[in-house]
């Protein structure tokens, strides 16, 4: 078999040519003759193709952000179709070749995205068997398939490629009329049962590793289009700024550089990138600034506590809480937990290239939701969505709605204004100070414990900035900086969340409250989804509070959780993590500056527990999470190695967010502008060991793994810190300054 490199493959398939001229829309199936049906969810041909050489193409409307989803989808399709895994190519993230399955979102790549592709592959196999049955004159039930060859019991055979290679299926499937993550199809074929899987469950290697290690293919930052200009957008020096004037003469000395301005949106474009960078530094803009748009950083959580509640919801409410808290003889335990604003701070600032013509536009984007980029660009430029093509190219890291979404709309806007293709990339501050943020919040927890030590009342109220001041995607310019700067006001959605667990406290309230954003439009503290939205934020509080309750009744934290968790899968991960970690109940009054802590949570069907072992240095305030053990149950495991590495990344990013990360700001502006002012975990502080226990449940449909582990790490570390020192740190991040201060008070 000939193995094509990724670039050769893309060249062959025509999906993405090396020169980055926009590929023809029919390109993905160029080898296939016959009329191509419209790219709509109701056509089987929108999901799957068998090429004349027997290779299979799966058209996927979600994206692999580097956690191995691409090969997992290939495994699922290969299993259903009975072809070898390396015969399946997964084409991701091009709106010209895939339907809007929501992009990378909510850890639904396998659960939703994979389910749909599984149905499509199963239906394709059914049709191929039907066709093979006719060709061979043998009933379909008496045929089997091996490596894409249909075989009869008497040894006759016909290959898939002979049956459909070169043709489209032209076969309708039933679409559930949903767009995005919920998109699904219904087919007549019955997918295989887990007992029949041969490819699923094995650790196939990822397909994006080699080119990243050898540098043989391109990131979105490397896309170049003939005649393109380089652009830099000038974000305001403060929040809530208006442009009074721009001194275009201030960049006259730079050949070819010019200003693009529309209301409060200012950018420079130049043929050479370095000239665009210099022009952005030199350009004199007269800003009309509002003083004191933000509260003092030290009083952020006081602001949240006292701010008017805009929206409140009580997703879990049972029993009689008031009665429980006023029952005679109860002991009340109360605590509050605080979490800062956090930045995606992706490795590279957002980047996009756009080529806007009068009646159409192509955008190369690193956004994890290219279909929504298409919609947003169409609205911004006043075009029909089908006139815009968004092509995802691997970007410099993506963990939600980061600055890549703004870059895509910036590029489209600037290309239209400049009349040429435009590449825009931010400088570091654009990726740290100006990306949408994870929301700051305060959680109030309260419990009533009766004389026997039983928790009879439990209340947890999360209060903070909405997790969606701007939407989770960029499909509406109102949710972009260029849209807001040019006069489209932010819409904002009020939403937060509550702990996800199954603690069976008889009287229980889990509620959330949101408050108004600090600045309505063009705010560097606007909030949006960041990896496991509000998960680490909420469970940092909720899972520390569970530990505090265990301590209040003098019970071991593992035993306490097992006593109250009601879902057997939840109990199982707690037990598995404790067992792997060698957890032993002990009297925690001995403080050795070494400790271990556990935390548990659920996330959309995935149960995860982590045990962190930490060492604390009193003199420096350093916390080192030396060893982290994770037990993870996301139902059926498709690729164990990929899953382990995805969990490892979550552990390290989770420690980073728990211990180091907070967006700093003063009364006027965000002052976290680079890696010095927004530190993250570095190599010296990486764990010595991360051990993962995978609980495989083939009978349970797979749920997500891209995010769940993130939510248990901060509390596991904080609980371990308590175990080590006897001191509770209820304010994140648990940085050296805070640790030293807390230990000196203790």
């Amino acid at each position, binding site marked *: 078999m000939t193995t094509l490199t990724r670039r050769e493959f893309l060249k062959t398939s025509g999906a993405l040519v090396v020169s980055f001229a926009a590929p023809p829309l029919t390109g993905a199936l160029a080898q296939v003759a016959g009329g191509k049906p419209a790219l709509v969810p109701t056509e089987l041909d929108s999901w799957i193709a068998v090429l004349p050489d027997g290779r299979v193409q799966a058209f996927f409307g979600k994206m692999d952000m580097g956690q191995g989803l691409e090969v997992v989808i290939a495994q699922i399709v290969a299993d259903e179709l009975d072809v070898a895994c390396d015969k399946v190519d997964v084409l991701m993230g091009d709106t010209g070749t895939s339907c809007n399955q929501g992009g990378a979102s909510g850890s639904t790549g396998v659960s939703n995205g994979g389910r749909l592709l599984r149905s499509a592959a199963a239906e394709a196999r059914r049709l191929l068997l039907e066709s093979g049955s006719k060709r061979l004159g043998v009933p379909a039930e008496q045929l089997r398939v091996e490596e894409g060859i249909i075989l009869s019991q008497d040894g006759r055979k016909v290959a898939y490629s002979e049956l459909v290679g070169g043709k489209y299926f032209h076969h309708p499937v039933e679409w559930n009329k949903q767009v995005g993550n919920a998109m699904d199809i219904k087919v007549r074929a019955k997918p295989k049962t887990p007992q029949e899987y041969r490819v699923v469950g094995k650790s196939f290697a990822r397909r*994006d590793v080699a080119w*990243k290690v050898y540098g043989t293919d391109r990131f979105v930052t490397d896309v170049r289009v003939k005649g393109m200009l380089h652009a830099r957008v000038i974000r305001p020096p403060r929040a809530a700024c208006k442009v009074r004037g721009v001194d275009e003469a201030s960049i006259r000395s730079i050949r070819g550089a010019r200003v693009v301005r529309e209301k409060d949106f200012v950018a420079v474009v130049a043929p050479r990138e370095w000239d665009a960078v210099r022009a952005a530094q030199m350009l004199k803009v007269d800003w009309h600034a509002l003083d004191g748009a933000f509260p003092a950083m030290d009083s952020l959580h006081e602001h949240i506590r006292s701010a008017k509640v805009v929206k409140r919801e009580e997703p879990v409410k049972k029993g009689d809480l008031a009665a429980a808290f006023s029952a005679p003889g109860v002991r009340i335990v109360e605590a509050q937990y605080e979490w800062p604003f956090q930045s995606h701070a992706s490795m590279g600032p957002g980047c996009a290239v756009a080529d806007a013509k009068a009646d159409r536009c192509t955008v190369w984007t690193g956004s994890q939701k290219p279909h929504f980029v298409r919609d947003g660009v169409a609205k911004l430029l006043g075009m029909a969505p089908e006139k815009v093509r968004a092509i995802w190219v691997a970007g410099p890291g993506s963990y939600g709605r980061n600055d890549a979404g703004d870059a895509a709309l910036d590029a489209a806007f600037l290309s239209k204004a400049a009349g040429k293709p435009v590449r825009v990339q931010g400088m*570091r501050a654009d990726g740290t100070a100006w990306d949408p943020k994870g929301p700051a919040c305060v959680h109030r927890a309260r419990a009533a414990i009766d004389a026997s030590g039983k928790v009879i009342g439990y209340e947890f109220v999360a209060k903070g900035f909405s997790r969606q001041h701007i939407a989770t995607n960029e499909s509406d310019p109102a949710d972009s900086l260029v849209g807001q700067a040019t006069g489209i006001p932010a819409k904002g959605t009020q939403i937060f969340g509550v702990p996800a667990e199954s603690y069976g406290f008889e009287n229980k309230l889990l509620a959330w409250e949101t408050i108004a954003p600090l600045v309505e439009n063009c705010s560097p503290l606007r909030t949006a989804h960041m990896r496991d939205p509000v998960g680490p934020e909420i469970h940092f509080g909720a899972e520390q509070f569970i530990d505090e309750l265990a301590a209040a009744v003098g019970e071991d934290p593992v035993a306490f959780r097992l006593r109250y968790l009601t879902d057997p899968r939840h109990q199982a991960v707690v037990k598995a993590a404790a067992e792997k970690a060698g957890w032993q109940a002990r009297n925690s009054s001995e403080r050795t500056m070494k400790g271990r802590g556990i935390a548990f949570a659920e996330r959309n069907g995935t149960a995860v527990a982590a045990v962190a072992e930490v060492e604390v240095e009193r003199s420096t305030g350093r916390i080192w999470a030396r060893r982290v053990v994770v037990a993870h149950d996301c139902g059926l495991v498709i690729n164990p190695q990929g899953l382990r590495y995805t969990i490892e990344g979550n552990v390290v990013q989770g420690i980073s967010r728990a211990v180091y990360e907070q967006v700093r700001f003063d009364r006027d502006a965000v002052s976290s502008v680079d890696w010095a002012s927004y530190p993250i975990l570095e190599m010296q502080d990486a764990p010595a060991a991360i051990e993962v226990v995978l609980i495989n449940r083939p009978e349970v449909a797979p749920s997500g793994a891209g995010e769940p582990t993130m939510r248990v790490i901060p509390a596991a570390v904080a609980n371990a810190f308590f175990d080590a020192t006897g001191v509770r740190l209820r304010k994140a991040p648990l940085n050296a300054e805070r640790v030293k201060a807390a230990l000196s008070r203790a």
Partner: protein
Amino acid sequence: MPSFRFTVDGRRVSVNAEPEMPLLYALRNDLGLDNPHFGCGLAQCGACTVHLDGEPVRSCVLPVSAASGRTVTTLKGLGTPDKPHPLQAAYVEEQVPQCGYCINGWVMTAAAYLKKNPKASDAQLRDALAGLKCRCGTHVAILRAIKRAQARLA
């Protein structure tokens, strides 16, 4: 604009640019060598790392004039799929990168360091790699890969 001559990955090149323009822009835009990446422009993350006469440098802050007459090596010059550097082979075997944007810096920095100290301990490696950033959190996999490469180099 003045012209600067130097060698990149065994090829002699010449770039016309302002002397203060960072080498990174010359490599990427004038020479089409995309593996050094722009991450911060402040020498804080390492994504732009190349070797200058064998020493790792941050090309996002090094003026192109400083490369004049010297030898620059990029990731592609370090190794290829056919002739991989042991670190690259180990990175593939350990499936290290996630988004992959930072990997250039880690490989280039570790390659230069292992030349000086092939038997570096875990603690020495951690110190030597200080100042590099990886946002996806692949640090533990990076250490695994380097140790695998060390075993091969030994």
